[in-house]
């Protein structure tokens, strides 16, 4: 179903790392598969413009440039979907400060503080959906971004992924929201999705849905965003408490 409003999706799969620190890390095998799944979710959300950055294209310059262009071009009521799958790094450079977390891209680390700053330039009336299939994924929730943000985090801000690729985060998302390519009638809200994701996971690896808008909990996951004041289902209720 086409969306009433323009959208853009940026899918990043950092499967080839060349920086000296990251080059010897095991490659994330499921990058390409995960991005195909997030592309299908974006399409279901009515997003026709999709950019896939894999291999050498998943570089700092490409990602930063794509996010800058998205922030500049996105309609005020548009929908930006950002998916990242790959390694994250967590380093404590100052013993008196919290560790710094960043997404490991082809040629170096992009601190999530920079990701948040780039997303903060998106029009405040727009919607940003982030699928973070990486360690410490929920750390992005620690930043204030004016736009409505729905973060689908594979694991907590302090948790590391050790996933079987066959049951990876993107695969679970697609299975829950879009089984067989059709919207799951049970997937009626992000609150539901959050409960489903957490129900079958150990405490040491807890996926979570997070949003900076209470009402977003009641939105149907990955449904096309209707025009402003278009009525249900996006205007439904006061939202769930989480």
């Amino acid at each position, binding site marked *: 179903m086409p969306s009433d409003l323009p959208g853009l999706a940026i899918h990043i799969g950092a499967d080839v790392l060349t920086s000296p620190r990251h080059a010897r890390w095991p490659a994330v095998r499921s990058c390409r598969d995960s991005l195909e799944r997030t592309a299908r979710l974006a399409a279901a959300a009515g997003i026709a413009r999709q950019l896939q950055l894999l291999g050498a294209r998943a570089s700092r310059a490409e990602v930063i440039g794509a996010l800058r262009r998205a922030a500049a071009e996105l309609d005020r009521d548009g929908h930006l979907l950002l998916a990242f799958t790959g390694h994250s790094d967590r380093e404590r450079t100052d013993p008196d400060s*919290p560790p710094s977390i960043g997404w490991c891209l082809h040629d170096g680390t992009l601190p999530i503080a920079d990701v948040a*700053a780039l997303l903060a330039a998106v029009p405040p009336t727009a919607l940003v959906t982030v699928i973070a299939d990486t360690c410490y994924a929920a750390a992005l929730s620690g930043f204030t971004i004016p736009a409505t943000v729905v973060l689908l985090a594979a694991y907590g801000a302090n948790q590391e992924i050790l996933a079987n690729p066959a049951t990876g985060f993107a695969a679970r998302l697609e299975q829950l929201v879009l089984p067989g390519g059709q919207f799951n009638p049970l997937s009626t809200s992000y609150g539901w999705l959050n409960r489903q994701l957490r129900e079958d996971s150990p405490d040491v690896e807890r996926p979570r849905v997070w949003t900076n808008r209470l009402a977003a909990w009641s939105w149907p996951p990955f449904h096309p965003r209707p025009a402003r004041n278009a009525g249900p289902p996006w205007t439904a209720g006061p939202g769930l408490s989480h």
Partner: protein
Amino acid sequence: MRRSTQARVLSSLAVILYVATPTTIMLTAHETVRIDRLTHSAAGDVTADRHGDLLRPGTNTIHLDRGTYHFRTAGNAQVHVTDPDSVTMETSQSVKCIDPPRVMRPGPDTVMPFDIRGAGLPDHIPALTVTYGDAV
């Protein structure tokens, strides 16, 4: 754009159990735990499959056939082994560390059982207490 200062402590204990003969262990943890069974192929690849249902917080009795198993916890855990000769254990701060334990990656070109997504030293390493014998 403002960043919250909420503290987030990374804490991870990884335990690998090598079971020589079928046995029963009791695992006590204050959290939900998943046990995976690791299978080694002739080519040296390692795959992981969940062993049984998720273990709910508290004490759980688990039957283990001969093989290699793995679990992680965010907090302290206790394992009680009835037959000390049947099980040996290896712990690390995380099997996700770079490089992971040898059992997770026997050779440079072999497939690992899990997709690992990064690295970071934990702030706190939970303790594993192991007891042996009939009495718990």
